[in-house]
């Protein structure tokens, strides 16, 4: 019997490791049933692999005792998510206060607009959390994702994501008021925070979505200087684009910051 086609090394390895498609694997096995040379090769390669795996096991050390909860805490950058959000709120309020104090600042009329209706809408002293959450952050099931940013939140809530190569930040709807302050800075992550008003944050591959349909609040988005490409849209309207070092924005910027009204595009709907 003439063997028209022995199994080359690639196919032998793929057969050994389950990387052949079912039809190709079946064809390979039929060939092995009739070809002693290929069987010898496969057996030798299988033995070599087994011995190599045994040797590599000599390098192993015990893994660390670390839980998903500990990793989640470390990812959020502190021992307690409460402290982090409080710090984040304090920081953003400080930035907002400085912006309010600047002569000619557009923040002043927005704050004055908010102060009126805000009397009927209590502003939390500290970040608002679902009351069922325990103080110790734990990642896992149970009611209320303890220690994680709630999907619907009041002031101070937000989301951090890696910019990747191309990130879209999408406000789902234009608003009647409010703005987004875009700041370029150091750091590795894109950070979006709701300064006031309800909003929910979700992320997916290459995008961060801010559902702001019922909001007229303001937001802050921090973008790393070295992020390759980040675009911000309000509804269908693109309002900010960082493409490498080039910035295109719907409002004039100053000192690495842009304040863009979130009412852009509302009239066009």
């Amino acid at each position, binding site marked *: 019997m003439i063997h028209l086609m022995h199994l080359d090394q690639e196919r032998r390895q793929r057969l050994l490791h389950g990387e052949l498609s079912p039809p190709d694997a079946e064809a390979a096995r039929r060939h092995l049933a009739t070809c002693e040379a290929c069987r010898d090769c496969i057996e030798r390669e299988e033995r070599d692999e087994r011995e190599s795996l045994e*040797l*590599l096991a000599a390098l192993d050390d015990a893994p660390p005792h670390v839980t998903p909860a500990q990793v989640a805490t470390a*990812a959020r950058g502190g021992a307690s998510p409460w402290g982090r959000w409080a710090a984040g709120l304090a920081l953003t309020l400080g930035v907002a206060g400085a912006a309010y104090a600047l002569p000619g600042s557009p923040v002043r009329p927005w704050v004055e607009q908010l102060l009126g209706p805000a009397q009927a809408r209590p502003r939390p002293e500290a970040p608002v959390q679902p009351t069922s959450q325990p103080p110790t952050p734990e990642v896992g099931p149970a009611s209320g994702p303890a220690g994680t940013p709630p999907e619907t939140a009041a002031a101070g809530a937000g989301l951090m994501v890696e910019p990747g190569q191309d990130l879209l930040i999408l406000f789902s709807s234009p608003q009647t008021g409010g703005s987004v302050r875009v700041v370029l800075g150091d750091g590795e992550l894109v950070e979006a925070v709701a300064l006031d008003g309800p909003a929910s944050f979700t992320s997916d*591959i290459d995008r961060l979505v801010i559902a702001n349909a019922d909001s007229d609040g303001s937001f802050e988005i921090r973008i790393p200087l070295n992020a390759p490409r980040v675009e911000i849209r309000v509804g269908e309207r693109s309002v900010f684009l960082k493409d490498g070092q080039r910035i295109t924005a719907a409002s004039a910027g100053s000192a690495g910051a842009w304040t863009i009204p979130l009412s852009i595009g509302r009239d066009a709907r």
Partner: protein
Amino acid sequence: MHGPDLMQHEGTAAEERTQERIVRASPAAGPSFDDRFTELFEEHFRRLHRFVNRLSGDRELADDLAQETFIRLYRRRSVPERVEAWLITVALNLFRNVRTTRSRRSRLLTVSRGAHAHGDPPPSPGDVVEAGAVRQRVRAAIERLPERERSMLLLHAEGYGYRDIASALELNDASVGTLLARARRAFREAFDDTSHAS
């Protein structure tokens, strides 16, 4: 209008994708990200740690890098489409970056010291010496391999598939089997060489 009016023709498609992804991200559509993160951690952390430990020969570095990889996954707040390829790519990039600087940040880690602390009979001194010698030889043999072959061999030893290995090491998927066999052969030759040297 004094700003960009970009890609208007993509607006509608983007809106549709947004709605799809918001629905998919809602709790009613499936497990939360935190639940999924826990599953992924329990499934992948130990093998990723083992890979980095074997690759680096530095247990503390492996502890740090494995944890940092999962920290980045958590911060991503979404599961990559090919999570295994993503994990090993991030871990490899971290290893390459950290390898020369060796900066280590403190983490909440407690390291288990010694599997023999729980009632197992202690190894004989001879066994310990022998195991140590084998470990040194294996380490020396692995270190002799080029980085790509070393990574490939160790990734496959952890059960990662050809497609993920090819993606992480930027290889042609069609040649992974052949390259893997060569890496294994080189490793065995290097290991055998260490026995001649000692």
